[in-house]
């Protein structure tokens, strides 16, 4: 299946990418994270070693055990600082 992945703010800058479409077998956000972090230390550091990492699936706050579907929009971002 395909998922559309978005990266925001400091994560976007650290990873040098704002968006990608990935073909994956990952059933959950956690599995997707493991797949992304296996790309190298930069990914590991920004995502998997990041205790403050926030995530959303289809524009709703999600967790590592949130399941994915074909065509899902997955977003990774740091804690929010608006207002």
């Amino acid at each position, binding site marked *: 299946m395909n998922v559309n992945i*978005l990266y*925001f*703010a*400091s994560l976007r800058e650290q990873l040098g990418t704002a968006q990608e479409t990935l073909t994956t077998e990952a059933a959950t956000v956690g599995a997707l994270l493991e797949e992304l972090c296996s790309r190298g230390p930069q990914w590991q550091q920004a995502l998997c070693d990041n205790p*403050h990492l926030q995530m*959303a699936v289809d*524009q*709703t*706050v999600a967790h590592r055990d949130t399941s994915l579907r074909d065509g899902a929009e997955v*977003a990774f*971002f*740091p*804690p*929010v*600082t*608006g*207002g």
Partner: protein
Amino acid sequence: MSEWVRVQTEDFDLSTEVARLRAGRADIGAVVTFVGTVRDINQGDTVATLELEHYPGMTEKALNEIRDEAHRRWHLENSLIIHRVGPLQPQDQIVLVATASRHRQDAFEAAQFIMDYLKTRAPFWKKEQTPDGPRWVDARDSDRAAAERWSQ
């Protein structure tokens, strides 16, 4: 985007927005407004400009959910949330929250609730330009604590 939740680059005029919020509503007896503005100093450093990034789509969804929750918890006749994005300068307005109710307590409490939830749940991120270069603003524990008091 809903009429009462707006994410925009343009500035807003407080009087115009309050007039719109109250238009034709003789049942409203109290209006509370909060305006957040850009400080020229943060954590001891001069801030030259502020860039506000957001997650288009999820931002509007999150703000609408916060607004709906405020209307569930308090007796509100109407409410409005405007948040600006893009480059901003010190003294610029960033955010407007306005709540209208029959009696003041609902409007006061709901305005605080909306701001506290907005600061911890709506996907906006601030990046400051300081003399030492650009930096992303860190989330504050005090904001998390302020939001948590509403779940007690």
